[in-house]
């Protein structure tokens, strides 16, 4: 009996072969990093205050960017999935622009808007003596810019897949539109939102180009792990490997424990 069951579950070779090749392609570079890592240096690196500051900053800013993306991205996704208005397809294409834009260009674009002489930035500077670039806020903005599309695309897909009739049922039970959204729509697309948020957080954590262009690089304030890694790569490639492995390990731990908590929930 068990043998039979195993047989039925066997993956067809036509799927298995490309899957294995693809996995090797994804995993081998990581293995390369692990093989090259100077493990003896690890304790010393972990004790460096600058490294810890960069790690802390990375976790904080990526989380903040994810929260911002949820706050603004979910409504965008709703608009794209449910709204019917002229130019919706154009808007959908525009939302994904940050996905195709080289992040460095994205950073320059952000400077042109929020920079000291940017459209909004100039006004903030004159009016409130507020400069966004070279601040932690700039890091969060840069991350949000590049990672929010991942959330929007993911949530929009979930919303399109959701059955509108459940919302109608809720309406007949006396739920207004906002209640329908919070009590029915959102819980039903929760897996999509979660997947989007994870993707968004991961993308934000690895963000480099837009961050260094828009927020600059200042230890403790705007130097996130990817920036630290990149700069370490300039002078000490082995240190860079250690740093990136630390970033990798932390993100895997965070995501795994998150998943645990979500799947453990009743």
């Amino acid at each position, binding site marked *: 009996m068990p043998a039979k069951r195993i047989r039925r579950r066997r993956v067809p070779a036509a799927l298995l072969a490309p899957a294995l090749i693809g996995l090797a392609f994804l995993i081998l570079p990581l293995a390369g990093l692990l093989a090259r890592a100077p493990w003896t240096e690890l304790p010393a690196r972990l004790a460096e205050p600058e490294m810890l500051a960069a790690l802390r900053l990375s976790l904080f800013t990526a989380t903040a960017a994810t929260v911002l993306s949820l706050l603004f991205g979910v409504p965008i996704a709703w608009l794209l999935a449910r709204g019917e208005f002229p130019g919706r397809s154009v808007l959908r294409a525009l939302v994904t622009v940050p996905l195709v834009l080289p992040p460095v260009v994205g950073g320059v674009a952000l400077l042109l808007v929020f920079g000291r002489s940017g459209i909004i930035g100039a006004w903030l500077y004159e009016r409130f003596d507020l400069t966004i670039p*070279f601040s932690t806020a700039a890091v969060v903005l840069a991350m949000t810019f590049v990672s929010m599309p991942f959330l929007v695309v993911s949530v929009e897909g979930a919303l399109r897949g959701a059955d509108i009739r459940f919302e109608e049922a809720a309406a007949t039970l006396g739920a207004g539109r906002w209640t329908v959204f919070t009590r029915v729509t959102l819980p039903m697309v929760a897996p999509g939102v979660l997947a989007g948020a994870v993707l968004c957080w991961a993308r934000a954590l690895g963000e480099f180009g837009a961050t260094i262009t828009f927020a*600059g690089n200042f230890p403790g304030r705007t130097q996130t792990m990817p920036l630290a890694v990149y*700069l370490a790569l*300039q002078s000490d490639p082995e240190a860079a490997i250690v740093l990136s492995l630390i970033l990798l390990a932390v993100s895997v731990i965070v995501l795994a424990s998150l998943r645990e908590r979500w799947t453990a929930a009743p």
Partner: protein
Amino acid sequence: MRAKATLAAAALALAPLAACTGGGAEAGADGTLTVFAAASLTEAFTEIGERFEAEHEGVQVEFNFAGSSDLAAQITEGAPADVFASADESNMDKVVEAGAATDPDTFALNRLVIAVPEGNPDGVAGIADLAGLDFAACAEEVPCGAAAQSALDGTGLAPVTYEADVKSTLQKLTLGEVDAALVYRTDAIAAEDEVDAVEFPESAGAVNAYPIAALEDAPNPDLAAEFAAYTLADDAQAVLEAAGFQRS
């Protein structure tokens, strides 16, 4: 059976990749010279390359411009290059230590200037005038940053951002995000439409030497040596000087 088929599929999938890497090395044999040069040399070396081609019938010079440390890493990992021109000595040293080159020659010097917006609105005349201004500099890990750090040592001044390379340091100035930037003289000259360069005495102690060397595993060793030598000749030196470099 199944396992074999899988392996065959894997081999097939990888074969084109192998072919790709093989192609590059072969090209050196028919008069193509591959030069890995620091990004700050882009304008000057492009010009020098054209002159070199003009003097050498059938020779084609191809450049790979990037940060010196990236280039050094690529070379020590076995990238098929003929010549390496670095923006600092430490990256050339890495290549020499790895046994990929011997006896580099210094062919140019570059010193820092304070780049300010055209017309110098804040009236910057020296390093001390940076006090109270937002300015950008390179990160210590990159050559221009090491120079900047030595210039700033003891002044108590710090930039608002430590950029990853000199081009982005200058970009912060041209985008108007900072009031000044510590950049190479050559970069300030290349952007002279937009920025003014303010020389300052402290930069004398912060000069970058640019070494060049033909590589041991050069696919085209003769041409490689010839090109390295050519950069020291008057013709090439004139081009470098026009770009803002100083003779070594």
